[in-house]
């Protein structure tokens, strides 16, 4: 079974803090993705990566950055957390490189910024 894990299920941070969200997949997948999910707005793509050290902006990259130093690990960084970044953050991976295909999701991190 594909397994995608995220470093925290729940996280509470203060405005202005630097926040790191970690994601690890154990199936040697090429693609990895970060989404946020908010009521009424659905899943929105923040960043994705189709190879180590490669990254592409998604639909809402402002206020975020990412890092992929190893194939199995993809980190999302909030440089200076703000209250409007309170959300559910979901990491996903898919096996097929540029061809894409089905994505497998982690359990999510519920981030609250106060």
């Amino acid at each position, binding site marked *: 079974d594909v397994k995608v894990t995220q470093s925290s299920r729940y996280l509470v941070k203060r405005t202005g803090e630097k926040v790191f969200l970690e994601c690890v997949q154990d199936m040697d997948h090429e*693609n990895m993705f970060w989404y946020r999910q908010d009521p009424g707005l659905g899943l929105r793509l923040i960043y994705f990566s*189709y190879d180590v050290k490669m990254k592409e902006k998604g639909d809402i990259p402002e206020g975020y950055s990412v890092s992929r130093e190893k194939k199995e690990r993809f980190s999302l960084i909030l440089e200076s957390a703000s209250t409007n970044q309170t959300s559910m953050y979901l990491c996903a991976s898919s096996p097929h490189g*540029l*061809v*894409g*295909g089905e994505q497998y999701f982690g359990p*999510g991190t519920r981030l609250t910024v106060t």
Partner: protein
Amino acid sequence: EDQVTQSPEALRLQEGESSSLNCSYTVSGLRGLFWYRQDPGKGPEFLFTLYSAGEEKEKERLKATLTKKESFLHITAPKPEDSATYLCAVQARLGGSGNTGKLIFGQGTTLQVKP
């Protein structure tokens, strides 16, 4: 613009009452259509991939079908444990700029099955 619309937004069924969820899409060449199940507070769980019109996939009480414009998720004799939000997503064929495995998700249909 590539787009996915799911209907209804919410659906209440009695246990055993079969029904269908709809996913309408417009995309510049479909590479794949995906169905997911999401329980509250959890990440989406992959269910099916459909690639071409006429294709069908089944898993327990769920059957997904695909036409050139829409997909249906049929739920036969549902049970309370089928209650969840069902998400549909599409991937366009390669060739356009920025198309590198990205999925376009619908807003989801929240299904509640009462005993």
